[in-house]
């Protein structure tokens, strides 16, 4: 059985994250980088430029003047929002392919929902910046994409076993493939140099216990994952893992807040669609 590392090695031989995405991620992590550095990178990719300008000119930013220069747009968007824009762009291309047992497109919808929910929870309930959690949401199931590419047959076996109730998905994956998508996704994201809490949230998003604080990226991601699953935004049919008790307790306490989030989700999704996918 191959290890998670073997799977990653095979995968990176097949596909690499676009240069722009890697470069932008590096710049975000570098204190000495400036907006000019971002501009230099972004302007190489006309699709990104269009998207970026659309983003800063959207009602979400509410700017009084139309932004037409890349450098201004970069300043308004901020580095991390920019990184997310690039990540969405880069990853979307990987979530392609559709069949009865495993739909990468459904997985993309799931990831997007989790990302948006994560962002909402972070911002509305914990009052913290939602950009990193959003990234975690978009990227958390990348392991499944990797497995689909490298070990498609085994992944389908695992999905079947999961559907038939033979245990949690990660367990079925480990049985069929030798590794699970949380581990594989974590290892892949690590090579991209993402922030540490994003990495660990990817690794822990299927754990039945959440060791970290309720406001941590990992907890938020798990909450969003649970909610998205309940909303049927889930590519692999099968039993949904219950929420870890401390998170369930938290939801009970903040019931009114979660009601509002669920109420506002469709609107937020429409908005996100406009920001990230409006040209499709």
């Amino acid at each position, binding site marked *: 059985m191959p290890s998670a590392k073997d799977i990653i090695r095979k995968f990176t031989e097949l596909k690499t994250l676009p240069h722009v995405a890697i470069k932008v991620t590096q710049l975000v992590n570098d204190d000495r980088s400036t907006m000019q550095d971002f501009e230099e990178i972004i302007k190489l990719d006309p699709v990104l430029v269009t998207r970026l300008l659309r983003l800063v000119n959207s009602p979400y930013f509410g700017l009084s003047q139309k932004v037409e220069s890349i450098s201004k747009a970069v300043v308004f968007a901020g580095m991390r929002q920019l990184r997310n824009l690039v990540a969405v762009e880069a990853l979307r291309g990987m979530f392609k392919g559709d069949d009865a047992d495993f739909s990468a497109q459904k997985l993309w919808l799931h990831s997007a929902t989790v990302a948006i929910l994560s962002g909402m929870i972070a911002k509305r*309930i914990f009052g913290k910046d*939602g950009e990193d959690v959003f990234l975690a949401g978009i990227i958390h199931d990348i392991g499944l994409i990797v497995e689909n590419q490298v070990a498609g047959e085994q992944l389908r076996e695992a999905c079947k076993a999961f559907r038939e109730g033979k245990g949690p998905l990660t367990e079925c994956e480990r049985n069929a493939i030798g590794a699970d998508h949380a581990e594989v996704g974590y290892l892949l994201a690590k090579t991209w140099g993402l922030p540490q809490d994003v990495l660990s949230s990817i690794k822990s998003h299927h754990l039945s216990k959440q060791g970290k604080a309720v406001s941590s990226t990992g907890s938020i991601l798990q909450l969003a994952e649970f909610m998205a699953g309940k*909303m049927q935004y889930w590519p692999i049919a099968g039993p949904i893992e219950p929420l870890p008790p401390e998170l369930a307790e938290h*939801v*009970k306490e903040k*019931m009114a807040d*979660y009601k509002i989030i*669920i109420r506002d989700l469709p609107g937020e999704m429409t908005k996100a669609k406009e920001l990230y996918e409006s040209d499709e």
Partner: protein
Amino acid sequence: MTEPTFDTIFDDLIDANEELQGFLAILDALLPEASMLLVSEAGAVLEGARPLTLAPPVREKLVREARAADGFVAGKADNGARCHAVYLAKLSAVLIIACAAALEDDWEPGSAITSLLRNTLELAQYRQEREMLVADHEQSVRQINILQQQHGKLIEDNYRQYRLNQDREKEYARKLESEIAKQTAELREANARLEEISRLKSDFLANMSHELRTPMNAIIGFSELLSETPLAEEQLDYTRTIAQSATSLLTLINDILDLAKIEAGKLELERLPFDLAEVVGNVAAMFKIPAREKGVVVASRIDRRIPKRIMGDSNRLRQVLINLAGNAMKFTEQGGIDILVDYEREAAGQIVSRFSVRDSGIGIPADRVEAIFEKFTQADGSTTRKYGGTGLGLAICLQLVELMGGHLMVASEVGKGSTFSFVIPLEEAPAEIISIAEHKEAGREKIFSGGRILLVEDNAVNQRLAGILITREGYEVEVASDGAEALEHLRHQTFDLVLMDVQMPNMDGMEATRRIRKIEADPALRQGYVGLRNLQQPLVIVGLTAHARKEDETACYEAGMNGFLTKPIIKAKLVMILSEMMPPATCPENKDPA
């Protein structure tokens, strides 16, 4: 996909009747004297703080009636107390309420009690909704806070980037500065190197002029001497040819040196008074004899409005005119050559005059006019062979005329002749300045009286040549081969004049002259020198130098010399300067007491 609700998502977590429970709690607080029951749509019965007991059939009946009715429905509790039921559409539940304080009649529709109760129910519902609104508001506040934080961070970030950019700019500026400094240093160094090379070139040129003139000196001098010895006709012819060739070679050397000096910007024009008519007349006279041989007439004419004596460099003006007239001579076989000076206009106190040299020679084709002013070029390659010349003459004239403030022009027609002309401003010489040339002129009148001459010269050939020339003129000659030897001679003998070569080994002419002047100035030292002891005035020292440059001349005078003679020694010039410089009427008793 159906719109998901909180209940469908968190169904495991929540008590389905939680909302009703919340409503009941609020109502309990609002109506402390009432006891209540809340029956949900699913039939769940929720009790208030003060229980109200109803038998299930009674309760179910009441609930059914309330759902159907549009208002309060009366019933009876187990304890006999009156109670009323009402359907709450928003909660999909039926509220059964009993209140002892309210009278039976009060429950009529539209009564104060029912209105009050309805308002209270609405209030309870609003309070419950308010919880949601508060949560909503709190979420908005949090989001606003995040935006504010992001905004702050953006400003902070911009400031940080501004500083980063500043640092980078400084770094660039520093690099640029050091780069510029480095390049400037390199350029300076290169410039210094070039200046050094240029200086070396000038020195080389000066030395070359010395090296070239020394043998020329010998050739010209000895061929002149040779031609004066008894010679057969053929031998005389050869000797003259040697002398002529040597003279042309010397002209060529002088031309090249002149041009080099002009190009190096080292040529400066003198500004001394001279007689213009004399200069022009001399030039015309020079060509009269060869012209007559060819059958060509040479004439000169100066406009009367032009002053007789003017300020300027007579030698250079003469050089230009000789060159132009020489050219005219060369290319004219019949007709005449006119040297003209015409009045053009007066400007700023100066007379602007046109100098022209007009010939009736072969002329210059229009397409070659420009080329003739270039160095080493004549109108046609074949002319060099036919007419000779270096082709340097016009190039020098062009430059000299420009130095004088004019521009050399030519008008020519093939077969009819050419006119070279230039317009320069002439300044009248002030009356009080007495011309040096006139001085010299006066000196020439002096009666020749002979004398003793000390010739200081290191070159054996030159020693011999000069020795012969001087002796022929009737002077006595003593030879010293360097400055030190000259001083030694002066220790024991008296001389009327010293001919002092400038460039010599051991002690050069400059140094020797300086020493002689020093000894003369010191009475004690003077006693040791027979040649200087009894002199009434300083010993006459005439410099001999191959360096024909102006600065060389100045250096000679600065060292204390009285006169200056360039090599190669031309007999006529030597004779003139000796007769000029020789102290008059040397007393026999002062002469060589030894």
